[in-house]
């Protein structure tokens, strides 16, 4: 099942710089997209979402962009902070959540 793909499994970024995470999907029926963050020994924590009728949603330091024609979404974190070091999951939904494999982000102080 490769409906949601996250490539580049890990990312290192300097504190204060921008982190950009990418996600591609194959199912054109997906109508709701989310990003979750996960720390070790914890469950995924909701970060931000976007519905298919929008192309951008912003919440503080986090912005999600959706390009439906390319079946691509991205998460921008700016400025990155050391507490942002975690695994980030992209998820998409039509009637159930499908997750990507996750990206490990390390923010270097």
């Amino acid at each position: 099942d490769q409906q949601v793909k996250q490539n580049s499994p890990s990312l290192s970024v300097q504190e204060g710089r921008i982190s950009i995470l990418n996600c591609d999907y194959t199912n054109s029926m997906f109508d709701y997209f989310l990003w979750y963050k996960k720390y070790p020994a914890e469950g995924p924590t909701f970060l931000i979402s976007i519905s298919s009728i929008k192309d951008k949603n912003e919440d503080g330091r986090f912005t999600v962009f959706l390009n439906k024609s390319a079946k691509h979404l991205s998460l921008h974190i700016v400025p990155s902070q050391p507490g942002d070091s975690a695994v980030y999951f992209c998820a998409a939904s039509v009637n159930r959540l499908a997750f990507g494999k996750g990206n490990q982000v390390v923010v270097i102080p």
Partner: protein
Amino acid sequence: EPEVTQTPSHQVTQMGQEVILRCVPISNHLYFYWYRQILGQKVEFLVSFYNNEISEKSEIFDDQFSVERPDGSNFTLKIRSTKLEDSAMYFCASSWTGYTDTQYFGPGTRLTVL
């Protein structure tokens, strides 16, 4: 802040044994979910539950699995006869409305089948 809780945090069992994983969703939520994550792999949807019945289930959720909301607060996942490949983290989640609403996840139960 309300949170989803899960017990136990770690369960070790012998192959062929039955296990019950327990979850207490956020109290005013109406939709409940189970997911699993095998080590190194994706978080995978197992089942969603609403109004005391299964609303969606994945191909993974076969006859060995069942879910129940035995009272007003608990939501359980039972695996009748565990297999080695059932070893995984199992996450419970809940939401106020359906799949377009934010799902809040518990910390997970690590199931180890020997």
